[in-house]
């Protein structure tokens, strides 16, 4: 009895309820006329696609800046990297998907690191209200990026509005570039046999194997980092500032490190997201993305003060899983559900954030 109780406590009621709901949705979906293989394909796809963005929450939380609502900063860096890579290929003359992906990452990461550095310095000045500030940083940077998208002097026809001849499009198709490289069987099919494992179908279920592998690799990297000397120091800074200072560790530096890592992961995350999705979405599209990441990691069991890689993997699966399975099911149940999907997503993600913030105010679950 007490054993079962302990297990439940360890998993946590919210996770248990959401997991049960998730399973229920999967069970009922065939009766709603959905193919199970499609449901699983969608869950796998969205899980791996969002994973790294959600992973970006971990260094932030561990270093003590809280949930990084300002991950949009990294997202913007990622988008700048991607668009620049496409433009470079355009000037080169022929499509080169792998190079695009490489350049996108190469350009995005330093930009993200630089932005993260400045952002981290800002967050050090507003200790105690990081999450409020980061929310507004997230919003502001999206507004600022809107100007950037209009002003960047890119010429590629894929990027800019065809009629105006300047200013970038809302949605940029990645078909000619790195879209689906690690996740789409149709794209992978055209590659040499040695690379065919990157994406395949098993019993009707599409497995974005390359993407999953990359996501898990990033998870491993973060996991390892958290076990390194620097990572342990950073986690200590987030947990107990005085303790960390008394061990001669500069807390502010550790917070900046966490912010930089979070922003860089955000940049990598959005590039991978776009890669799976097949499109880059500019302007206001990433506005609420930070909220989704926050909600997902919280579902996974993180608090505003502690987050682990496991929280990310579980949270991504539950959060994205619920969204992908619930929407078609609800659509069948309700008439004219075209905008309902968005409504449900907003209710779930904001509801979860609200729940988690009310639970972990002041942090630290063990100490009451």
């Amino acid at each position, binding site marked *: 009895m007490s054993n079962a109780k302990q297990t439940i406590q360890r998993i946590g009621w919210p996770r248990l309820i959401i997991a049960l709901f998730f399973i229920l949705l999967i069970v009922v979906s065939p009766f709603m006329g959905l193919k199970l293989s499609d449901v699983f394909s969608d869950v796998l796809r969205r899980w791996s696609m969002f994973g790294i963005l959600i992973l970006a929450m971990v260094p932030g939380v561990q270093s003590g800046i809280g949930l990084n609502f300002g991950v949009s900063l990294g997202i913007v860096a990622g988008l700048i990297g991607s668009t620049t890579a496409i433009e470079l290929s355009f000037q080169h003359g022929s499509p080169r998907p792998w190079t695009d992906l490489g350049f996108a990452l190469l350009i995005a990461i330093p930009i993200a690191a630089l932005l993260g550095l400045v952002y981290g310095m800002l967050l050090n000045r507003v200790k105690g209200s990081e999450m409020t500030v980061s929310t507004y940083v997230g919003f502001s940077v999206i507004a600022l990026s809107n100007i950037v998208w209009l002003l960047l002097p890119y010429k590629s026809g894929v990027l800019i509005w065809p009629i105006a001849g300047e200013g970038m499009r809302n949605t940029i198709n990645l078909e000619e570039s790195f879209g689906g490289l690690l996740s789409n069987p149709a794209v992978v099919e055209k590659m040499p046999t040695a690379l065919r494992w990157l994406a395949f179908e098993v019993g009707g279920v599409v497995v974005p194997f390359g993407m999953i592998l990359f996501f898990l690799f990033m998870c491993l990297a973060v996991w*390892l980092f958290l076990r*390194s*000397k620097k990572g342990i120091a950073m986690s200590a800074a987030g947990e*107990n500032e005085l303790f960390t*200072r008394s061990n001669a560790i500069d807390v502010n530096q550790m917070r900046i490190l966490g912010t930089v890592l979070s922003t860089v992961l955000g940049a990598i995350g959005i590039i991978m997201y776009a890669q799976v999705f097949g499109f880059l979405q500019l302007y206001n599209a990433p506005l609420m993305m930070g909220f989704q990441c926050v909600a997902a990691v919280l579902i996974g069991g993180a608090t505003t003060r502690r987050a682990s890689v496991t929280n990310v993997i579980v949270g991504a699966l539950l959060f994205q899983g619920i969204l992908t399975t619930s929407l078609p099911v609800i659509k069948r149940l309700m008439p004219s559900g075209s905008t309902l999907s968005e409504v449900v997503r907003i209710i779930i993600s904001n509801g979860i954030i609200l729940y988690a913030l009310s639970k972990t105010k002041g942090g630290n679950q063990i100490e009451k």
Partner: protein
Amino acid sequence: MDGPPILSMKGISKEYFGNRVLKDVDLVVGPGEIHALVGENGAGKSTLMNILFGMPVIHTTGGFEGEVEIAGQAVKIMNPHEAMDHGIGMVHQEFMLIPDFTIAENIKVGREIGTPTVFSKILGPSMDILDREAMSRDAKKALSRIGMNIEDYVKVAGLPIGYKQFVEIAREIDKTGIKLLVFDEPTAVLAESEAERLLEIMKLIADQGIAIIFITHRLDEVMAIADSLTILRDGELVERSSTRDMTVVEIAAKMIGRKVERLVDLGDTCRVCDQENVALELNNFSVDMPGEQVKGMNASVYKGEIFGFGGLAGQGKIGIINGIMGLFPAEGDALVFGEKLRLERLGDALKHDVAFVSEDRRGVGLLLNESIERNIVFSAMQVHNQFLRRIGPMKMINRKKAKKHAIDMIKLLDIRCTGPQQKTGSLSGGNQQKVCLARALTLNPKILVVAEPTRGIDIGAKKLVLEHLVKMNVDEGMTIVIISSELVELRSICDRIAIVSEGKVEEILPPDASDAAFGLAMSGMSLAGVEGEVKDE
């Protein structure tokens, strides 16, 4: 004294969770009497006052035994508001004033004088318009009663500290029917001239027939103005006497007087410490730590000795080590084995092999959400790069080594836990302290500084922790500095004890010095100075 005493508390006993903090204590104060209440930290002064004021902390922990009479009538005070109704007021050590209000507003706050308006007739008297003139009149009257000449419309925010205190007193005086005023360490935050003035004001108030309870550790002030005094020690009444009948030396001795059991049995051979070899030297050392200011301290700790810093809370002994470790801004010189520490550089002391066990175990000493193992190896890993192994460019934690070391430490210090993976937040206080100690010892320091080593831990663990400190000292020649509010503890293991008062070392005493010497040093006086004799070495 004529008529019944204003306050008479008889046979007061109080227990907190099975721990007796007051045993059959009496406190009697007559009208116009200035009565001093003295005792060490933890003697029971605050608990007694909490009972008098009916603080919730008393009633939620099972109430108390004994009788309280005010002006000859038995009363049951259940909350501070009732205490106010009975004419008892308190002047706090930290001022309870609203900075953005004027003096008059602060004096009348909660007891404003209002003029009814149409709205207040409907919505109740809380909607009255303030009668500022009447309030100002009252404020002026209260201020003049304590001989203060200051405009009542000035905001409190910019006032000097002394004046703030006077405003607080004026507020208490203004309460109608005030019979008894409690001053809790009122001179602690004041400059000397302000303190003198305060004492004058207290006399002025007493002359108006108001009884005063004066809580202080400054025995010279007690001698200067108190008519009578009550000495508490370990929750027991030691003495109630008229001040005239006692000397300051007697008071000091009665405050401390306790049996001291040496934990270190040194036999007949007195430990001779190498006076040439100074392990830690402080020259004109100041630390800006709120509540524990160190002001130009000088002290030397010899290599291989157990040195104690004692004194009352808030006098600065805790600030010393926090300054040395760079946790609070410090000035002046701190030398470790002759090398000057760069105080502005975080962790320079750590690099000089000074390890520190904080007095604030849960706040500074531990990562409560991390395992015992992680806590124990943390400092050594970060400072000395131990328990790490290189994998490519990364320095990863060596779990195997860390675990082995943690298990060794758990055995060595007898940490009661389910294993090295248990989170420190779920350990008892004594075991948490042992984890802190284990972390410091893992650094393999030359000087180990332990602040409040036995605060909040049970007797068994207490003895073990102290014995282990002695063992480290004897076996490994580690220089140990103990900072503690518990004099008994210091006297049981230290070779020399520095009593800190007002941010300076008042006196360095051997552990077998007289109770009076310790008691006087704690209140900022020396036995030699009082008796006019040369202290024998």
